[in-house]
């Protein structure tokens, strides 16, 4: 009797295991075939001479693609631009998003409607946002110049996207606009998980607003904040769509970041060099993520 039961259970487990395997199979197969296989292949291309325009010689060249890039004035420019782009976008996004989340924390009439309205950039692609802002920042007929002149902040129209000095500012403004909502929503969700008693206690202790912010609110949500920032850095770094829509990397390649330059090189057919850039991007971002995660961990343990 006992043996019979245990065999039955074993058979059942075997069948279940097969079912589960079959359930997982399509997902794993798709991701393996169309994401991981090209990825592995792409990594190997980074070490080969692989140009679509001339496939007669696809030999292994070691680190040549990497050294070509590191000596490439243009590539070094895109690295610098990437840093400006990430930092310049992230800091205002964070500050404005945080402020909005604080303002939204207490319930008010139409808060739901408000959130739904403010949410709309999420539904739009970075590429389209780029196009919208390209039109608004148009040097001759752009609404930005018109508004700035009406408010007397400038006297003559600024050729935003035609002038290297202003183009980066303009794409960053667009990107800040695009990303604020993400921060607001994520931080708001975290704020709502902070128990109300903490605030009551701090109010009873007579803590002021600023004090409450820095000794109650921020410590309570610091893990979420840290992870949101990390995800955001990676995401901003990896999002050349907006730049493509707004400037296409111009004028004179002044707004190209590493990933947008990588796509341009891919489109030109130099897969070896593009892959080398991809490998560097992934490598640098992974290193960054590891160091970042390590640096936020010990502080957490100390608390």
């Amino acid at each position, binding site marked *: 009797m006992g043996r019979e039961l245990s065999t039955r259970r074993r058979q059942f487990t075997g069948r279940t295991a097969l*079912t*589960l395997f079959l*359930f*997982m199979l*399509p*997902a794993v197969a798709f*991701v393996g*075939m*169309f*994401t*991981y296989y*090209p*990825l592995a*292949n*792409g990594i190997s*291309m980074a070490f080969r001479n*692989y140009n679509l325009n001339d496939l007669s010689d696809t030999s292994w060249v070691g680190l040549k693609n990497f050294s070509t890039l590191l000596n490439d004035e243009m590539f070094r420019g895109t690295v610098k631009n990437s840093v400006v782009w990430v930092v310049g976008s992230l800091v205002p996004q964070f500050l*404005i998003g945080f*402020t*909005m989340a*604080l303002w939204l924390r*207490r319930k008010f009439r139409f808060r739901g409607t408000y959130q*739904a*309205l*403010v*949410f*709309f950039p*999420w*539904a*739009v*692609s970075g590429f*389209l946002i780029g*196009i*919208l802002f*390209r*039109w*608004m920042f148009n040097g001759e*007929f752009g609404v930005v110049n*018109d508004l700035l002149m009406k408010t007397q902040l400038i006297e003559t129209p600024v050729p935003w996207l035609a002038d290297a000095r202003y183009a980066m500012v303009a794409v960053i403004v667009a990107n800040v606009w695009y990303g*604020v909502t993400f921060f607001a*929503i*994520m931080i708001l*969700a975290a704020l709502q998980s*902070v128990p109300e008693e903490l605030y009551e206690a701090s*109010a009873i202790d007579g803590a002021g607003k600023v004090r*409450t912010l820095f000794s*109650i609110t921020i410590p309570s949500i610091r893990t*979420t904040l840290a*992870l949101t920032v990390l995800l955001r850095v990676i995401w901003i770094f*990896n999002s050349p*769509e907006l730049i*493509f*829509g707004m400037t*296409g990397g111009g004028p004179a390649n002044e707004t190209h970041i590493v*990933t947008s330059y990588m796509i341009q090189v*891919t489109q030109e057919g130099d*897969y070896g060099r*593009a*892959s080398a850039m991809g490998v560097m991007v*992934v490598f640098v971002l992974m290193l960054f993520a590891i160091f970042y995660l390590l640096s936020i961990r010990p502080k957490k343990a100390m608390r």
Partner: protein
Amino acid sequence: MIRDYSTAGRIVRFAGLGLCLLITIFPLYWILVTSFKEPGTIFAYPLKYWPSDWSLANYEGLFEQSNFAVYLGNSLLVSLVAAALATVISLLAAYVLARFEFVSKGAVMGAFLVTQMIPGFIALGSLYILMTRLYLVDNRWGLVLVYVAVSIPLCTVMLRGFFENVPASLEEAAMVDGCSRLSALFRVLVPVMTPGIAASFIFNFVNCWNELFLSVTLMNSDSNKTVPAALNGFISSYNIDWGSMSAAAVLSIIPTMVLFAFASRYIVEGLTSGAVKE
């Protein structure tokens, strides 16, 4: 948080929120207004913030001068099929990942999450070569397959979060009554999770609808272009026709906005709860 019921604080708060709302809405308003202006008045100075004559000329021009109807059809077909397939496939995987413990589970979750760190376009070149070998370049079904693969990881993570809100006793009871696991999943669990599944589907759809680089790379002929690829063609021309451009932009934003408005609550729930649990 901030115990502030003073009038000044309240004014600052609502003025700030109002300004944020205005700035958020304005770009959309501006492209809408531009698209409904008479083509000649778009470039007329001073700029009109509220057009005196509303006109559909830009929309008519768009459909006359380009195959925009074809692009819309392609985008709709590719996004619908890819989003549906990805949702079903992710549903099966998410169920397993939510309910069972097994050795390679961590590896699978890890592999899925890593794809979220690495953008889909990082291996664009080798993907193009793979698709050439499969004879799937410049083929809408080929693009569907790629979009399914790109959509699966995040969709699985989201759906897994939704599964965890449904007690396992539900499908266990159905299976005691003689249901197979598959039919228990589709007859008992799916109906309970409809909002979450719908949200995941919409999320996939919007992402496929918006996708640019894969589409530009894998589709060559005009009759296979999706909307973003077509827009890319429009802005690459030396003289951008902002009249039909604005009409095209509006037409490509509207469907996603309508869908997102329905599903945004659930998507936020799925994303934030998934993030907190990890």
